[in-house]
């Protein structure tokens, strides 16, 4: 940032009235822009969503849509399996893992049988429906409507061999780690899910 505040012209002569006036206007503009920056009390939140299981898709979307209701500036950066949440086809078919999930009312040996993930997912979906909890698709639409910036990491789009058109309309593509870091640096809240 430039801190030079010359009281005289470059040649050492006192500044003309016009030059001074110009300088004052310049500084006033700078002060106004700094005031906006400092006085900007809008909170910012960045969530990094890395998981693509049914249960792990919920927390980022619930927090993001609620934060938007607070009027916060929200970015959710989806990477690796988190991309599946934004993938139009895959998002409606996310699975709960029955194996290695100590909250499942069945032993691992049983959970490993074919069809168990599907069954566990079906059970959870029924619960969600009974409880009046929103679906993942509803939360995505809601978040986008409210101005949440849902971002899909470009590197993992290519890694997973997805196409940019595979994602919901309104999803931001063509972004990477640097974009995510820049948002995180400006954020009051940063979460990794």
């Amino acid at each position: 940032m430039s801190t030079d505040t010359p009281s005289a012209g470059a040649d050492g002569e006192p500044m003309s009235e016009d030059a001074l006036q110009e300088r004052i206007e310049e500084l006033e503009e700078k002060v106004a822009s700094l005031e906006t920056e400092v006085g900007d009390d809008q909170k910012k939140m960045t969530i990094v969503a890395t998981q693509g299981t049914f249960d792990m898709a919920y927390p980022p979307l619930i927090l993001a849509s609620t934060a938007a209701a607070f009027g916060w500036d929200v970015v959710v950066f989806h990477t690796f399996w988190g991309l599946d949440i934004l993938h139009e086809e895959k998002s409606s078919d996310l699975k709960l893992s029955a194996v290695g999930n100590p909250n499942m009312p069945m032993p691992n040996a049983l959970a490993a049988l074919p069809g168990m993930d599907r069954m566990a997912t079906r059970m959870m979906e029924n619960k969600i429906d009974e409880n009046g909890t929103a679906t993942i698709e509803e939360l995505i639409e809601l978040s986008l409507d409210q101005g949440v910036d849902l971002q899909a990491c470009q590197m993992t789009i290519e890694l997973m061999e997805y196409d940019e058109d595979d994602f919901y309309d309104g999803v931001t593509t063509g972004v990477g780690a640097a974009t995510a870091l820049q948002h995180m640096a400006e954020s009051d809240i940063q979460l990794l899910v």
Partner: protein
Amino acid sequence: MSDEFDITETLDVKGASCPMPVVKTKSAIDDLAEGEVLEVLATDSGSMSDLDGWATGTDGVELLEQVEDGDIYKHYVQKTA
């Protein structure tokens, strides 16, 4: 119900759970004019704390009253700006 204020609109989010009561309240408030009051009817017991937290943390809204009426949680939110 209070008669200290007039209700402009009623939002029915009965049966919906977190985060819907808050998110839908925010959308409904956006459609109101300054000074108008929104009545929110919810069955989510978490809405008592959540709407309070939302109203406290959000500019331009004030939570006037919260009433527990049987299974229904009633919230009265005024748009102040």
